[in-house]
């Protein structure tokens, strides 16, 4: 294809993408002149451009649409839904033709005349069947902005540059190793440092080159939602947030199908018909909101609908019918566990296969696709109030954070996204047993299937040695498997390269990479390994776990703590939820000063705590990287120990503000660090001697995930269920109030901003600043 033609195709695509939203907006309000103008300009430009090429059909179509739109602009015709559909049908056909031109295929024949005839006022229905065809197949194109100077590049070229830079990084690592081996050579060190610096800059720039705003995914959604809701007789408003979040172009493509699928399901099964919504006391227009947030090197995508929520009874029935669980198992399962069943293979909640969803592609495929790229998906749902899908995906496909382990004398890498926890095989909390050929490990009262990595890879028997380490891998929301390895090495960001086909066929590996020391290492393909050992699709195990959990329903709330030995020689523990990751840095990265230590990790400076004055940390220092979701800080530890789960009360130790208190664990005293105090001390938030107490709905996942950190950051302590007095309570308005103790003040969160505005104590649940303000004023009242 010659360049001129390629430009024509790309430009037309760009315009198509840009007007996708305009079309829907225009349909919603046909009197809107600016939208009409935008669409008119599009067909006009297409018509003009195809004059240069020999595309009579494109010209005829765009000419007809232009004529009709000109009539509308002149006020000669009114844009009723019939006319809108006919125009949309023409735009869809233009998209198809452009795709055909791009692929160099024969243009699909026929039908154009029907579309053009449908533009006339008195030919009902002709355009409708075509109008609903999906436009999601559009290829993405590079965004261009009028204010920036841009050039158009083939994506393959970018990929080549990217892989070249990745190779340069590996070559640099290799060189660094050789320089170290050769001994100090001051004349080389300077230039080498400089090379490293430049390389890091280039790598970052190239990574940014491959980034696209998530808008490219969003652009097609208003149209998709509009077409689906029209087809299903529903009214749905779509709210897109965070379109400026950037992620890898490839990743955007990987997300297109899962997001489309979730939206289809939400409109088909989630959002009710307008009459049903009115009957349920909701607005007749359903709201579908999609938001994107970046946190560190991961993106969180949330798809929320305010429909009827997941029908657990129906999901349960289907699961029983599909043989995934037995009636008895189902009866013992909690609501959350039943909801998770929608990710099980072979389950579709559609009563009949409709044109929209239930085409045999289930949520299991969505989950598999997301996990393939190192992401996770979870769902929460409240009956009558809606469903929320959380997708967490890495920013890019090419660099994967991984844990390196060894088994059978060889090293392997495990993608960090699967690793839940690491326990020592010799820990007293672990018991092993064998049922048939299957090894089981009992840990925290859960039976977890246990695989020996050496055995999985055909290098040894499946006996598990007490001296081995157990890596707990999360396969699904409730599925764990323990993988026994000989040793755990390091956590590294690895540039993963594809393997030769003959090796890929084994199914055990996802790729290969070179470690910093220049040795190749294989990246394990966790889902396939689990499937090969009969574990991935075991919904029964899930049910069994649920049964077990429900046997002791309301035990004391268990806390997970990470234990370690601090530099003062004392054994301490910190809440696992604060620990983001574990790093190891050379001593040079630490800067010690009277005002407070700092450490450089990667390319950021973190406040550092835990190093006693005058103590010598040695050559490398292990760090816990802690996050309270707003700030991060590093805590230096001398030795890392197990993670524990405990229901024991913490005995307060008022004389030391940095400690939450003492905890008795297996006859040993552990000093539990107060995460709040740590952050208050080092991140310049005003310290508070006595924190007011706030109760939030503990059974609401949104509250625990989103609200809790925010409330904590505002200087509150979260109330425990047995707290008699709370200073303030936050309730979600459509849930029943759960005031159990004396409440001084209450903030009600509404999902609807209009209702929230009418109530004195009401706050729209996504209005962060209003919420923070309400918390702040409540705290001042208390002080006053």
């Amino acid at each position, binding site marked *: 294809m010659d360049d001129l033609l390629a430009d024509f195709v790309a430009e037309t695509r760009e315009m198509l993408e840009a007007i996708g939203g305009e079309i829907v907006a225009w349909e919603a309000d046909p009197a809107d002149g600016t939208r009409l103008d935008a669409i008119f300009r599009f067909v006009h430009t297409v018509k003009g451009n195809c004059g240069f090429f020999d595309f009579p059909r494109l010209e005829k179509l765009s000419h007809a649409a232009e004529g009709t739109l000109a009539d509308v602009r002149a006020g000669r015709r009114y844009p009723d839904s019939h006319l809108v559909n006919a125009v949309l049908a023409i735009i869809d056909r233009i998209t198809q033709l452009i795709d055909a031109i791009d692929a160099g295929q024969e243009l699909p024949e026929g039908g154009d005349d029907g579309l053009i005839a449908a533009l006339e006022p008195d030919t009902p229905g002709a355009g409708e069947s075509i109008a609903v065809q999906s436009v999601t197949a559009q290829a993405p194109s590079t965004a261009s902005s009028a204010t920036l100077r841009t050039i158009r590049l083939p994506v393959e070229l970018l990929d080549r540059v990217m892989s070249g830079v990745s*190779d340069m990084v*590996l*070559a640099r*690592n*290799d060189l660094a190793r050789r320089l170290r081996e050769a001994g100090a050579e001051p004349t080389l060190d300077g230039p080498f440092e400089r090379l490293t610096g430049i390389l890091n800059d280039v790598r970052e720039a190239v990574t940014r080159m491959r980034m696209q705003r998530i808008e490219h995914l969003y652009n097609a959604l208003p149209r998709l939602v509009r077409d689906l809701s029209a087809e299903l007789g529903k009214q749905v408003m779509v709210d897109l947030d965070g379109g400026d979040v950037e992620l890898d172009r490839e990743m955007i493509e990987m997300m297109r199908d899962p997001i489309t699928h979730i939206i289809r399901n939400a409109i088909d099964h989630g959002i009710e018909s307008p009459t049903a919504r009115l009957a349920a006391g909701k607005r007749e227009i359903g709201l579908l909101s999609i938001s994107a947030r970046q946190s560190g090197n991961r993106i969180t995508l949330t798809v929320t609908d305010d429909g009827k929520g997941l029908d657990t009874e129906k999901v349960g029935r289907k699961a029983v019918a599909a043989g995934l669980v037995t009636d008895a198992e189902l009866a013992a399962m909690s609501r959350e566990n039943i909801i998770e069943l929608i990710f099980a293979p072979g389950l579709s909640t559609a009563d009949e296969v409709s044109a929209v969803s239930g085409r045999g592609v289930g949520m299991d495929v969505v989950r598999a696709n997301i996990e393939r790229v190192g992401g996770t998906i979870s769902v929460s749902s409240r009956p009558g109030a809606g469903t929320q899908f959380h997708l967490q995906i890495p920013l890019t496909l090419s660099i994967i954070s991984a844990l390196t382990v060894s088994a*059978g004398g*060889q090293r392997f890498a495990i993608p960090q996204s699967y690793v839940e926890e690491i326990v020592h095989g010799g820990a007293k909390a672990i018991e092993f047993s064998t049922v048939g050929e299957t090894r089981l490990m009992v840990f925290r009262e859960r039976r977890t299937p246990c695989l020996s990595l050496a055995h999985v*890879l*055909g*290098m040894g028997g499946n006996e598990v040695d007490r001296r081995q380490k157990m890596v707990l891998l999360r396969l699904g929301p409730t599925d764990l498997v323990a993988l026994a390895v000989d040793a755990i090495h390091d956590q590294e960001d690895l540039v993963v*390269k*594809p*393997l*030769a*086909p*003959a*090796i890929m*066929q*084994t199914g*055990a*590996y996802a790729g*290969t*990479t*070179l470690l910093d020391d*220049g*040795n*190749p*290492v*294989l990246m394990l393909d966790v889902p396939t390994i689990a499937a090969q050992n009969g574990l991935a699709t075991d919904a029964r195990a899930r049910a069994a776990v649920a049964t077990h959990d429900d046997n002791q329903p309301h035990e004391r709330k268990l806390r997970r703590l990470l234990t370690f030995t601090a530099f003062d020689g004392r054994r301490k523990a910190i809440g696992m939820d604060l620990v983001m990751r574990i790093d190891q840095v050379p001593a040079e990265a630490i800067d010690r000063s009277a005002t407070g230590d700092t450490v450089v990790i990667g390319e950021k400076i973190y406040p550092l705590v835990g190093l006693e004055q005058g103590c010598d940390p040695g050559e490398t220092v292990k760090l816990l990287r802690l996050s309270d979701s707003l700030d991060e800080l590093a805590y230096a530890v001398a030795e890392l120990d197990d993670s524990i789960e405990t229901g024991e009360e913490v005995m307060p130790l008022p004389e030391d503000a940095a400690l939450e208190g003492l905890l008795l664990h297996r006859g040993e005293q552990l000093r539990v660090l107060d995460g709040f105090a740590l952050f208050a001390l080092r991140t310049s938030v005003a310290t508070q001697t006595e924190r007011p107490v706030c109760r939030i709905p503990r059974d609401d996942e949104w509250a625990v995930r989103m609200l809790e950190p925010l409330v904590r950051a505002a200087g509150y302590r979260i109330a425990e269920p047995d707290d008699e007095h709370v200073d303030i309570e936050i309730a979600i308005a459509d849930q029943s109030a759960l005031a159990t103790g004396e409440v001084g003040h209450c903030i009600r969160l509404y999902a609807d901003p209009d209702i929230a505005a009418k109530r004195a104590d009401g706050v729209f649940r996504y209005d962060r600043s209003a919420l923070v303000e309400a918390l702040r004023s409540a705290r001042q009242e208390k002080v006053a």
Partner: protein
Amino acid sequence: MSTLYVMIEIDGRLAAIDAADVQSVIEVGSIYPVPRAPGHIAGLTAMRSQSLTVIDCRKALGLPSQTVPERAPVVRVADHSYALMVDRVDDVLESRSEPAAVPGNFGADWQRAGRGMIETDRGPALLVNVEALIAGPRAKAA
């Protein structure tokens, strides 16, 4: 015009690989085995900060394996680089003839991996089909 060939020895037989297929000849360092991979895949090795798949040519031809040689030619097939473990790597030679069919048969495994015979200064040599070596003994149908 005659073509250049990299001369190798497998199981004492002289063989040749089209020099255009060969990226370089490397000193083989440590080889990291790949558990569960087909038998003719000896493992992975690092070359100038890339990892290469090492093919044991003797095993690919259904012969027993031998000790690891020092040097191996590197070939690139379908975007993957492979190091070929052969008994010996010799010079690069010009062929004195076009590849020709061998009278009779090379023998079952050699037949699959061979593309013909060429005449060189060192005598007749089997022209090796690199793809067939990489595919290994399993892909007999191909």
